């Protein structure tokens, strides 16, 4: 069969190659890459850590119960973040109500129902692009659409909807990824028993992917809570010494949605305001707000990781 027998790898046939040196050099290269990789990783983490420690060292001594229960003030030692954190909370509620239903529904549609054609390919591409659009662009869009056209005013509703649209692509993409992890065998089992497409989604696809979807939702909210630019664009006030209207009251009809159209501020804007003041004491307040914001974001991400871990363990296929 074979005309020419390849000669075996002997010292003579290999000629110039020095096996010992070759081995040493390859081992060296391998080692060098692991060192370079570790150094870049340490650089990234150390920068972040330095930033956080610096912020925390300045800010933590300022954090007290009063800091959370006081309104902003001209006197830095009396100022607090009450209106800011309540505002952040209210805006997040609206953001969640906008982003979760629309994002999850869109994700389910794209993954389960959308036909695989050119048109849906374009949509998918655009959703990914949308996730990379600078947030201030969303602010401009919201100013034109929600504030001027729809006359929602510079309100919690406008802010929540703006941030909701901003994080919508994240929710859609993570929903799709979560749905895609469900093996086909589970779907076939469901269809095989006579279930409809919607029953399969309702009884299997959604429950089994809810952990992944929830993770995506929390991560998107933790991104939204730190957003500043789009809210400044729609005209969020920086000095607010009152709270939005309470959503529940003792008199009929007990529930009020007045708070949606109230003016607001959020924590990053409060922080921005204090940083731009000349007095050193206000900078301390800003650092304290930054620390609170950072801890909240880290906590939210921690919860997301925990949920994902729990679900991965529970869902065995």
């Amino acid at each position, binding site marked *: 069969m074979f005309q020419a027998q390849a000669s075996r790898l002997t010292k003579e046939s290999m000629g110039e190659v020095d096996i010992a040196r070759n081995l040493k050099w390859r081992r060296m290269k391998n080692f060098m890459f692991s060192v370079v990789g570790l150094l870049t990783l340490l650089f990234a983490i150390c920068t972040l850590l330095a930033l956080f420690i610096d912020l925390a060292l300045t800010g933590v001594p300022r954090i007290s119960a009063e800091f959370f229960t006081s309104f902003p003030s001209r006197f830095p030692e009396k100022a607090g973040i009450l209106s800011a954190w309540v505002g952040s909370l209210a805006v997040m509620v609206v953001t969640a109500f906008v982003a979760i239903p629309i994002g999850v529904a869109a994700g389910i549609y794209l993954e389960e129902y959308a036909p695989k054609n050119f048109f849906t390919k374009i949509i998918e591409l655009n959703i990914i692009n949308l996730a990379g659009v600078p947030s201030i662009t969303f602010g401009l869009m919201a100013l034109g659409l929600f504030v001027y056209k729809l006359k929602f005013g510079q309100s919690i509703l406008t802010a929540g909807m703006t941030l909701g649209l901003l994080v919508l692509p994240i929710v859609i993409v993570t929903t799709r990824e979560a749905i895609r992890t469900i*093996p086909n*065998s*589970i*779907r*076939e*089992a*469901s*269809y*095989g*028993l*006579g*279930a*409809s497409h919607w*029953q399969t989604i309702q*009884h*299997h696809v959604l429950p*089994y992917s809810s952990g992944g979807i929830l993770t995506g939702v929390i991560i998107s909210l933790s991104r939204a809570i730190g957003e500043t630019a789009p809210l400044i664009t729609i005209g969020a006030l920086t000095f607010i010494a009152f709270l939005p209207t309470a959503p529940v009251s003792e008199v009929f009809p007990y529930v009020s949605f007045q708070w949606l159209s109230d003016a607001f501020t959020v924590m990053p804007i409060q922080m921005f305001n204090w940083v731009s003041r000349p007095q050193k004491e206000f900078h301390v307040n800003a650092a304290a707000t930054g620390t609170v914001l950072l801890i909240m974001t880290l906590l939210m991400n921690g919860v997301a990781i925990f949920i994902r871990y729990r679900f991965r363990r*529970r*869902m*065995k*296929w």
Partner: protein
Amino acid sequence: MGPQFEIPSTSTTKFNLGVQTDFLRSQVKNLSFSYNPKEKIILKNVSLPIFDKKVTALIGPSGCGKTTLLRCFNRMHDLYNEVSYDGEILLYPESKNILSRDVDPMEVRMRIGMVFQKPNPFPKTIYENVAYGLRVRGIKKKSYMDEKIEVSLQQAGLWTEVKDRLNAQATSLSGGQQQRLCIARALVTDPEILLLDEPTSALDPISTSHIEELIVELKKDVTILIVTHNLHQAARCSDYTAFMYLGDLIEYGPSNLIFTNPSDKRTENYITGRFG
């Protein structure tokens, strides 16, 4: 009961049936199938009777189209492509062509149950797994469900093992138990035909023999169509065997005849292990 079987006149298929007293449950008539009009044809003009309360085994080398044929029976192909079936699968007693465009695949799947190659229980409790077929149909009466679930778990030979832990996760069961759970899940809705797609290929020998005993037991109540790579399994538990090769149905007949005295050379080569 369906009509008595008459031998269809296809050139590729020779039948050697002897005296016929079994009744038809279903009949495949001149079925050709391909996933895509441009792709190669997977099933070529296949005709096959399925007798009531008998086990029919589909054997043949990998890629011969036996699983494709099985999945036609509950329209599983409809999930993935715009497929078109050429030919008929008639379901008796009303001679309904289940491949017709007018027939809803959901309706077919409610009448014909399927058990898959790999055990695929839902990540829910044992009870909920078996209950699912009933829930899909909108049945809510607890006492009826409890009774039905107990009976089908008994039919699947799993009741004694799980009766004390019906609320345990189904995924905590062993592979063989999971597969019997899947059989119970398919049985709970009284299917007219039970499709088994290599049900033991992922199981150990003991679980396999468990399932084989089960198949022999089950055919008292339900018509079974089984795809298997294990020829001994086909010989042990089937009444009729169909040998397929490259999309053609080469030979069909009572299992004892097929395995002892095949009329086609290719069948003989396959069952004696010369290829496949």
